[in-house]
């Protein structure tokens, strides 16, 4: 009943969201830092990548990577300034960064100001979907590898208890900035993908509400769970589409759904758990009466 052309479009968007969410999940879910500025990193990646392909006819993948890297470099500066801030202070500082990025883009006429940048090369739907899937698979694998290493565990330690992390020799600041930089890299690449999907970008696409949506996806999926982020990105990108026929009631339902999931399952869909063959096997075993312990976020 749904046409492939439509679905594939949403899938591409899901992939773009997912890529950002994966990075954000590292930052928020695993390192415990809350950002409201990731739309800003997406914007930086989007404008960089678009300029590269339009002005310098760079191949897409290279342009995307460059977009990611530029956004990562910016994140290093921002991180340097703000990562010593605690809790909501950091959160508001990132909000400030996101809005400031947008405001700068609004003013820079080279990028078309608030009128946006049209004429970015686009690709055939299926081909593009393949690219998006390819990048996401790489991103997920890399993220899982990272999470399940001593570095990933150290980030989790920071999320849990900073002072104790210091006491066992974890350079808290370095891990925080690493985590921010990786998440900015992901967001930057995702921004580039978005630019080449729409063929047009405009600062308003990267406003606060976008950052908010991304964070909602992370929490919705469950902090500290890559599987959760994947499921969250899929569900929450599709949800507004499924609700499309509700017209103006759509976002009312969306808002209510967010509250509902938070109060009924505050740990999010997955909440620190990962879905993998081992976990499924354990679950099956438990169902059969075996008494094993829960799978958990790391190790």
């Amino acid at each position, binding site marked *: 009943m749904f046409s492939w052309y439509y679905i594939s479009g949403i899938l591409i968007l899901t992939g773009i969201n997912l890529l950002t969410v994966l990075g954000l999940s590292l930052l928020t879910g695993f390192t415990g830092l809350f950002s409201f500025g990731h739309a800003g990193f997406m914007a930086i990646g989007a404008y960089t990548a678009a300029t590269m392909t339009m002005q310098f006819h760079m191949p897409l993948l290279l342009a995307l990577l460059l977009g990611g890297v530029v956004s990562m470099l910016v994140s290093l500066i921002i991180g340097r300034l703000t990562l010593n801030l605690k809790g909501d202070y950091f959160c508001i500082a990132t909000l400030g960064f996101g809005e400031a990025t947008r405001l700068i883009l609004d003013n820079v006429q080279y990028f078309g100001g608030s009128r946006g940048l049209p004429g970015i090369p686009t690709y055939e739907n299926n081909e593009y979907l393949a690219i998006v899937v390819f990048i996401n698979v790489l991103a997920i694998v890399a993220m899982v590898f990272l999470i399940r290493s001593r570095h990933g565990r150290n980030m989790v330690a920071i999320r849990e208890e900073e002072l104790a992390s210091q006491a066992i*020799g974890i350079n808290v600041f370095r891990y925080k900035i690493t985590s921010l930089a990786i998440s900015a890299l992901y967001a930057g690449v995702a921004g580039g993908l978005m630019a080449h999907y729409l063929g047009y970008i405009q600062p308003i696409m990267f406003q606060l509400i976008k950052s908010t949506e991304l964070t909602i996806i992370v929490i919705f999926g469950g902090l500290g769970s890559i599987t959760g982020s994947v499921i969250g990105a899929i569900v929450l990108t599709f949800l507004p589409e499924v609700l499309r026929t509700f017209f103006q009631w759509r976002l009312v339902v969306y808002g209510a759904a967010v509250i509902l999931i938070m109060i009924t399952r505050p740990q999010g869909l997955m909440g620190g758990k990962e879905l993998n063959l081992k976990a499924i096997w354990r679950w099956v075993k438990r169902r059969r009466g075996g008494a094993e312990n829960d799978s958990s976020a790391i190790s």
Partner: protein
Amino acid sequence: MTAVLSLKNVTKKFGGLTAVGDVSFEIEKGEIFGLIGPNGAGKTTIFNLITAVYSLTEGEILFHGNSLIGKQPYQIADCGITRTFQNIRLFKKLSAYENVLIACHKLANYKIIDTVFFRYGKNYQNQERKLHEKTESLLKLMGLWEVRDMTAANLPYGMQRKLEIARALALEPQLLLLDEPAAGMNPEETIHLMELIRQIRDEFDLTVLIIEHHMDLIMGLCDRIFVLNFGKALAQGTPAEIQEDKRVVEAYLGKEDDAHA
């Protein structure tokens, strides 16, 4: 032979309050050194100064003759000094196993890049295996292997303290700082802990600095004891000397106390 740790005229002030004033002592390699004194005497503050949680107001702290001034807490751990916390600071929501595994991180040296590109390389796999082996042995040593999958916050108090010790040991330190490790343990458990600490010292070739209010443990375990009172040195000596010291008895131990407890 130089001392493992030496404090020279260490002072820490909080506003007008001198929490630690002009304290000096040295700890020799392999020693179990006790730090005792009434509540609020400044014992924990000294730990916080050594581990750079607080910055010194005055004085100097040397580790193997090198100054620790200006170092960040994590760098102190890198040097080989680890600690436990009086107000337990475990990674509460993680399992006991994960708590120790995280702390083992220094035994591996692979980089972030390696985790992505050389995940299935021999080097990476060996290092990871080493971490898990170390974790297992530490948990077994501390008698926590059975509860390894329990969430740290749900462990009974005493076990949480042991887990803190396991976590501190994971870094293979040269100097271990224990802040009231036996708090919340009953006498039976305390004695068990005492033996454990001694065993750890021998097995890992450690130097231990310990704060405790359980006198059985302090007197039975320490080679030397340093007594603080109102942030100032009150006495220093072997357990026997300390127990006899009138000032210590008066300020801290209490007269009839050595009969029991």
